[in-house]
């Protein structure tokens, strides 16, 4: 297993270099001039625009621009935005916010989703099962923005038990409501995945054996059934961790949290290549680690799975 992990980590190096180049190239392929973007709907002054283009090497061929970027990265300089802010500063300010939000959401969706799924599976066709089904439908068909907005208005403005927005109240107060909203769609997936897998496992031979052996039902469900049902759920959670970090654009905007997702959207909009490349590369890294953990968990959950 040690060798397996080391190999996976070594694989990350070519992947990251490839990804930085790919993303750099892709953001390049997007139409749009980052300097005009700074001038909004007015036409940018030609002299000023020319000066800025030169200053940020925007007139150089793509490959030269990439070279400027990647040599900078290797000397610890992630570059600056086209308004002169160091990207390393942006990352270090925003990453902690995103991490807190994503992990809280991750916890909420894992706990609530799996619990709801277990109950739905055990009480198939009963009230709980239908309740879970209806909640699932609501979470899927109501836009996140609407759900978040209503909760914000009711809990934040009217009742006042959660902050309306911002991170002034720190973790966990400022993060619980946004994390719940962020987790909502995935929670629906997890609940239904857990329910489906549980229902299969309940009927598996080893569960029948365990029950026949006279083991208490709680233990059978907790250890035998659940463990074997978790593989698709764990797979989903692994994918979702990255999505929670980079894709929280709507939630971050709604709750005014300065995180990675909002910055990424803004930078794509402004065509700030170095920022987009930096942040996407960071996300790839996160997916890589999350998927490595998932693959390791497969073996924990099902002892028959081993690594070469």
């Amino acid at each position, binding site marked *: 297993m040690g060798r397996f992990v080391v190999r996976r980590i070594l694989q990350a190096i070519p992947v990251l270099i490839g990804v930085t180049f790919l993303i750099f190239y892709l953001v390049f392929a997007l139409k749009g001039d980052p300097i005009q973007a700074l001038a909004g709907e007015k036409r940018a002054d030609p002299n000023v625009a020319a000066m800025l283009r030169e200053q940020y090497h925007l007139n150089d061929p793509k490959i030269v621009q990439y070279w400027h970027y990647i040599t900078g990265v290797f000397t610890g300089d992630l570059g600056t935005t086209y308004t002169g802010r160091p990207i390393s500063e942006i990352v270090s300010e925003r990453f902690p916010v995103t991490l807190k939000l994503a992990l809280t959401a991750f916890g909420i969706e894992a706990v609530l989703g799996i619990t709801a799924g277990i109950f739905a599976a055990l009480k198939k066709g009963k009230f709980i099962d239908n309740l879970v089904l209806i909640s699932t439908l609501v979470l899927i068909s109501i836009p996140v923005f609407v759900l978040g907005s209503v909760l914000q*208005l009711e809990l934040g403005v009217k009742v006042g038990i959660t902050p309306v927005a911002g991170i002034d109240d720190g973790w966990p107060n400022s993060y619980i409501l946004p994390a719940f909203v962020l987790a909502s769609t995935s929670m629906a997936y997890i609940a239904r995945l857990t329910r489906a897998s549980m229902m299969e496992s309940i009927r598996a031979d080893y569960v029948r054996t365990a029950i026949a052996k006279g083991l208490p039902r709680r233990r059978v469900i907790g250890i035998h059934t659940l463990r074997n049902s978790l593989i698709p759920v764990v797979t989903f959670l692994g994918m979702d961790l990255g999505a929670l970090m980079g894709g929280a654009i709507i939630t971050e905007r709604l709750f005014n949290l*300065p995180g990675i997702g909002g910055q990424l959207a803004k930078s794509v909009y402004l065509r700030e290549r170095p920022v987009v490349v930096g942040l996407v590369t960071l996300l790839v890294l996160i997916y890589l680690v999350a998927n490595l953990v998932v693959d390791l968990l497969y073996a924990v959950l099902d002892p028959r799975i081993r690594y070469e």
Partner: protein
Amino acid sequence: MRGAKSAKWVAGAAVVALAATACGGGDGDSKGKGGSSGGVISMEIGEPQNLLVPSNTYETEGGQVIHALFTGLTKLNEKSEVVNDLAQAVETKDSKVWTIKLKPGYTFHNGEAVTAKSFIDAWNYGANQDNAQQTNPLFSHIQGYKDLNPGPKKKVATKEMSGLKAVDDNTLQVTLDAPFSAFPAQLSFSAFSPLPKVFFNDPKGFGEAPIGNGPFKMSGKFQHDEKISVVKYDKYPEASKIEVKGVDFKIYSNLDTAYKDLLANNIDFHIAIPDSALATYKKDLDNRVIDTADSSVGFIGFPLKYNEAFKKPELRKALSMAIDRKTIADKIFQGARTPADDFISPIIQGYRKGACGDACNYDPAKAKALFQQAGGLPNNTLEIGYNADGGHKGWVEAVANMLQQNLGIKVTAKPFEKFQAILNDLDAKKYQGAFRMAWNMDYPDMENYLRPIFSKDAIENGSNYAGYVNEDFEKLLVEGDKAPSKDEAIKKYQAADDILAKDMPYIPVYFYKLNAGFSSKIKSISVAGHNVLWDTVKLS
């Protein structure tokens, strides 16, 4: 103009002084945690685009902060009139050579005295192309500007504009290239603020914690995407007129969220009420609101320079007459816009109600007749492009539906990712349809609504995206510039405006309004040019 949210130069002054009505029930007010107390208030802004340097701030969000930190030579008062601020007198005989006397006693927040040189150095920095400051073109009237802007890739030979001269510490003499009577108005823009000596050692570091000469000084650094805190500067000569002890500019990426924070008393002033709250905000806030005219105008434009289909003015007039502006203003904008009847904003001296004439009146029958007379459009189809990022979908689709119904042609609303995408396609002569567009003034003068969008010169260097050219119009503009008095200038400009109404290069659709709201902590507050006038803020 960058959309309603980020437009610099909005001169509609808005004064709302409420006879402190009953404070809306005790529990409502005590709940708010609001980080501000003891004379400190908080307001929403968006993240400033650039670091906080006056000459690099050409948008309202950063402009709001700069305005609190810096004091310029002139300012707009509550009625949007240009009055002296740090200047004691601004004098000229020919509108070309200006002598400006400074009031003594102003200092920067680090103690340095504000002198004529503080202005000259700042303007020379802002105008120099090597420094790539966003407001660079605003300095173009000053003699010697061209020396600092020889053009891309060319070396700047001097660092000073020949038109700037410090007669003594408190007297500044400015020579312009040509007479320009709106110069004092232009001076009220924060780009013309003075800068202390420390700025030039480290402009970047300065931008994170600027040292200004205004009523407020920075408290700590610019906390990106979170907030900027300023506190009252006690040595400010007019400090006694300012009741507010400090301001927290809280940075929001979403107006809806800021509005909810206003409702929960977490912020005290919200300058741009979101669309979702327009129907209810007056009731929600017990009429603690500002609802007044703003300076922007919304248009529908045509690629006249390369699409022959739109060539006939009658056709454009027919399209204009088929738009029910009133219903759009009421139903889509819920009263946050008013129907446009001129190319000039109603807050500008020289605006005439109904100047646009019949062309801006809704008359579907006449429109259809005129449209058919003019020969209609190829394939009986029309596309109206809009940028999907600016909240334009609703009204553009409404216009499309109306044109389709009233003219019997197929009209579609086409979204672009952002305005720049429309601009690219227009420059490349790729896009054949009509497009939305808006204009917001750089300075409160009629000329600023004509030349930058409709003159020949603005095709390359400005915002004449249609490529409209009319020699008579050009002539009247020049005559207006040369006119000896403001009234005569306005007459010439109005004659130019009439040509637009006849030609309809763009269709004026609506005028913007300023809709703001404040908490019960504030008794009254005024806004001019989209900036809070801090000496007018009275607390409850």
